[in-house]
């Protein structure tokens, strides 16, 4: 099962990673997803994470078919 991974704003520029896909062999926490796709780059303390367009904690597990997004603190309004 595949998952889609997206990065936004300063995080995308800093990591120089485009949106990508990852093949899952078993369930992964979003923190483990980060480790895999960034090749173990340290995660900034204030990174926010969403799965299927909803905020989740880093312990949230994905099992396949999800869209996982990582982004910096929001600055809208």
């Amino acid at each position, binding site marked *: 099962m595949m998952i889609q991974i997206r990065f936004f*704003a300063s995080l995308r520029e800093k990591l120089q990673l485009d949106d990508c896909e990852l093949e899952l062999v078993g369930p992964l926490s979003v923190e483990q997803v980060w480790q895999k796709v960034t090749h173990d780059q340290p995660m900034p303390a204030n990174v926010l994470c969403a799965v299927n367009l909803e905020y989740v904690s880093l312990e949230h597990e994905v099992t396949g078919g999800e869209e996982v997004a990582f982004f910096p603190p*929001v600055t809208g309004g």
Partner: protein
Amino acid sequence: MQVEIREADFDPYAELLQYQTKMQQGGQYGATTIFVGSMRDFNEGDEVKAMVLEHYPKMTENFLLQISQEAAEKWSILDSLIIHRVGEVHPADPIVLVAVWSAHRKDAYEANRYIMEALKSKAPFWKKEFLEKGERWVQQNTPGR
């Protein structure tokens, strides 16, 4: 209850007039509260020439609709409207419009502020500022400021 992401400049007052005419609830609301956030030409000691607003399509709309619904559950309101710009904006351009219609002012004021604070702290938008020399991402919004 309406939520919109705009890619082009908008006139908040024209939008309000148009939305309110369509609402057809004149006579029911005694209180309308409106917040308009506009681009300032100055931030953290630097002149800002332009800004690019990025967002997370779909998640943004979902989130704004969710906070509109939360406001409607917490306060007695008749309708609400949120419009938020994305893309390139310049000083004085409107960035966000939040409007709340209610029978009474307490609900209208409190619901409007609730929506704005939730939007500022959790709606997935990001601002990159363009200065005289170089560019930078805005680091974070200040709570309640």
